[in-house]
């Protein structure tokens, strides 16, 4: 038997055997798809988280950032503005904007003294800008009637010189700039004072 004859017979015999690769092919396809599915699920979860964060996050920081800029212009840099210093005029202005006078009165119980107030725009929303003093530092408080959920959030957000919270009475942003002036402490005291207000 020559090499060619032998090769031909071996080739014919082995190639004639049935080879059913369908089970292996199905298994391979399944294995390949699995990580893809996991990756797609992870991607979808990440996208949902980003969408949720984008939906929830910008509303608070954008108002706070606008408040910080406003405080810097009007209080730190002292840009000229027309301010009301009369308490009853401030109360009246507050009532017109839906901010209860009781809220301003509650702020007065925190140990911070109201100095002046005016209306201003933060992110295209009208806020009552109040300036308080304590220990030689000036604090800006921005109040407006609550725009979102009426329930009290119970938490004070922000840190350092900026704090934010919302009750069923007001949306409040607190800003302080001077070293040692803690806007969060004022916000915390105010939040506690607001809790005693009638709903």
């Amino acid at each position: 038997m020559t090499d060619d004859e032998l090769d031909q017979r071996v080739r014919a015999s082995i190639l004639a055997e049935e080879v059913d690769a369908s089970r292996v092919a199905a298994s391979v396809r399944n294995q390949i798809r699995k990580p893809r599915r996991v990756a797609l699920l992870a991607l979808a979860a990440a996208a949902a988280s980003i969408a949720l964060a984008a939906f929830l996050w910008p509303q608070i920081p954008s108002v706070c950032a606008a408040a910080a800029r406003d405080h810097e212009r009007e209080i730190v840099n002292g840009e000229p503005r027309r301010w009301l210093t009369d308490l009853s005029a401030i109360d009246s202005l507050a009532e017109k904007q839906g901010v209860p006078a009781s809220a301003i009165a509650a702020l007065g119980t925190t140990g911070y003294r109201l100095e002046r107030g005016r209306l201003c725009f933060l992110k295209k929303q009208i806020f009552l800008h109040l300036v308080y003093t304590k220990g030689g530092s000036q604090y800006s408080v921005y109040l407006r009637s609550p725009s979102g959920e009426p329930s009290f959030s119970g938490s004070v957000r922000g840190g350092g010189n900026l704090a934010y919270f919302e009750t069923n009475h007001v949306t409040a942003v607190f800003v302080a700039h001077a070293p040692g002036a803690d806007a969060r402490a004022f916000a915390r005291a105010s939040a506690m004072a607001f809790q005693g207000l009638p709903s």
Partner: protein
Amino acid sequence: MPHLAALLRVARRLTLDPESAEDLAQETMLLAWRGFHGFQTGTNARAWLFRILFNAFHAAARKPPAVASGLSGVQAKTQEALEIAEALDALPIEQRTVLLMCVVEGFTCREVAGILDLPIGTVMSRLSRARQELRQSLAPMAKEAYR
């Protein structure tokens, strides 16, 4: 899935066990899928796949069962095919591998040398010995045929 049948056919002859062969073929395709960036376009994809198959086979240190599982008898269609398959399975794995790749799968000795990472002289001598042993094993059958 291209070349899967050929891979499975060779895997059967390497492992001498249908289930191990399917595992090996599956592993080969998955390794190829994951390492596809390592494949150079324009080169021989079939040779690349067989190289992965042999690497996987050796890496897993798969050893054929001590007693052949009757693989030949299951697939062979004729008495001659059965005897050839049995003779092939009885060859030492190095010779069997070279014979399968050169004779059944149609690779050249140079290509097989590249796939198995062996000198071409080693491939040629293994092929020669494989043919010699196969011829001896099949001699009674040849005599029968000429009777």
